[in-house]
């Protein structure tokens, strides 16, 4: 099954010490240490960024587009994720940040938060249909969608089949620029300013049968200092009348924002990929049938905790809440209701099950392999120490059966073997016998 995999999450080998931190925390057991360096198994990686956060040597990184990619386009559009507004601190308001983007060189700014409101409206429509499978699981977090494809195929039908705010923002802004200013569509470069590695992957290697509306993804880390320097030089905001999104869209950056916006029904918001795993396990068992909507985010504190952010997520939350309070006070300008045709926002096709956990296509062989894995696992000490480079003894047994590792990768097994060889050598030496049966 030839499949092209692009992953934003990558390893800087020069910094990797071959320790056990990332292999132990990866939610899909996608990492192994081989020859002293971490290796990511492409089929299993969901770009959740847990390994980026956990690596003590900063050897794991997210690949994003370099800032100068914007120069490939005559007309540049910025799509700031609402997370950006929480990065700078009091005194650096949303208006100043959006202005700074223009001063940086973007011709047009379309807030992803505005698109989030459109997605919220579409979600409410979708949820009012009696025939949908509940609980509905949000598709805003690409890492969670990938996770479901691999681990929870029975929940694929529960995924909210509406385009993410990033894609909606990209489509709308391109259309607006083309209609208002007559710029040809292919000369418009649309760039998402992202806290998230998984978003990069969803642009460069979209879900089945799709093409992204976004041209490039810039990381918040890269653009932070240039924007800060620009803002420091800003005078008072010349009141440029640009309509900004309302509080609802901005709060999508925090856990709970999306589900709060939906307003009706029993909604839960879960963050952290391991918590998402637990909740999805409950969903699969049928224990969540009374829940209408699940907002599931791979990062702690939601997008504010993404691997590409600058500010501590708890502090960013306070910054963002400040902005939200200001918006609510000035609610005089409310966002005009866009009468968008909801059908345009729906996914044209679904995502597919990725059975990468399968041992073999032939059931007979799969059963045999499973028994082999059981036997090999039993022969291991069961410490899950990680010294072999696999996250657990059972994972190493599986790797061995799949042909990717050998028993003596386990240092305990190796020690046993060395001891046995040493004993035999000792026997030869002391008795002069070449017999193996001296045990």
């Amino acid at each position, binding site marked *: 099954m030839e499949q092209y995999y692009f992953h934003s999450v990558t390893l800087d080998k020069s910094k990797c010490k071959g320790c056990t931190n990332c292999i132990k925390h990866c939610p899909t057991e996608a990492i192994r240490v081989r020859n002293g360096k971490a290796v990511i198994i492409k089929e299993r990686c969901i770009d959740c960024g847990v390994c980026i956060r956990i690596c003590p040597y900063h050897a794991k990184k997210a690949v994003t587009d370099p800032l100068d990619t914007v120069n490939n386009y005559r007309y540049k559009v910025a799509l700031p994720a609402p997370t950006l507004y929480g990065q700078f601190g009091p005194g650096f308001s949303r208006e100043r940040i959006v202005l700074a983007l223009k001063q940086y060189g973007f011709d047009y700014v379309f807030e992803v938060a505005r698109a989030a409101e459109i997605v919220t409206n579409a979600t409410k429509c979708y949820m009012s249909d009696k025939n949908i499978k509940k609980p509905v699981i949000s598709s805003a977090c690409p890492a969670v969608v990938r996770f479901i494809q691999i681990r929870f*195929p*029975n929940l694929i039908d529960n995924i909210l089949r509406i385009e993410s705010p990033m894609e909606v923002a990209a489509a709308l802004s391109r259309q607006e620029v083309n209609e208002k200013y007559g710029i040809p569509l292919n000369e418009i470069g649309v760039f998402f300013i992202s806290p998230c590695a998984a978003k990069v992957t969803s642009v460069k290697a979209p879900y089945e049968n799709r093409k992204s509306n976004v041209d490039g993804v810039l990381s918040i880390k890269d653009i932070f200092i240039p924007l800060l320097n620009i803002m420091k030089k800003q005078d008072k905001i010349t009141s440029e009348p640009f309509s900004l999104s309302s509080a609802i869209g901005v709060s999508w950056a925090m856990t709970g924002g999306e589900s709060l916006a939906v307003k009706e029904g029993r909604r839960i918001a879960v963050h952290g990929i391991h918590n998402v795993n637990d909740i999805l396990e409950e969903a699969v*068992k*049928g224990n969540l049938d009374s829940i209408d909507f699940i907002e599931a985010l791979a990062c702690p504190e939601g997008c504010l905790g993404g691997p590409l952010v600058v500010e501590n997520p708890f502090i960013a939350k306070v910054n963002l809440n400040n902005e939200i309070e200001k918006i609510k006070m000035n609610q005089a300008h409310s966002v005009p209701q866009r009468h968008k045709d909801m059908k345009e926002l729906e996914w044209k096709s679904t995502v597919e099950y990725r059975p990468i956990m*399968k041992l073999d*296509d032939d059931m007979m062989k799969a*059963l045999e392999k*499973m028994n082999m894995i059981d036997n090999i696992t039993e022969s291991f000490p069961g410490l899950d120490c990680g010294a072999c480079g696999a996250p657990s003894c059972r994972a190493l047994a599986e790797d061995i059966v799949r042909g990717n590792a050998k028993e003596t990768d386990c240092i305990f097994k190796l020690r046993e073997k060395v001891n046995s060889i040493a004993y035999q050598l000792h026997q030869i030496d002391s008795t002069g016998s070449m017999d193996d049966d001296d045990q």
Partner: protein
Amino acid sequence: MGSVVVRDYIIPANDFTIAGEASSNVRKILSQLGVAPDIVKRTSIAMYEAEINAVIHGNGGQAHVEIDENKIVITISDQGPGIEDLELAMQEGYSTAPDSIREMGFGAGMGLSNMKKNSDILDIKTAVNEGTTVLITVFFK
């Protein structure tokens, strides 16, 4: 003679937080064996219902699972009070669960009928004060 994968689990009495671990485990095994997702789902629902019954009503029990290339056979048994009226128990909505259980969201009375809906063969042996054994068979094709 093909290979058979065998698993045995202990179902703890009254501990809801870990109830369902056995069926979760079986779900993972079936996925690794390449069983189709909809069959995995049916199996795990049927097994989960039996597991929960053993916890709520049976005071804990044992699960024995055998998987071959055609089917999975799950045997869940307990040494609890047994089912007095099996026909009544199979009715949707009928439950003998105490109030404390219902407050936690269990005891809706759908367990046995869910089990029947999701298994290909369901065999229940029970007698008052002698415990209950549930045999669930699901075919892979």
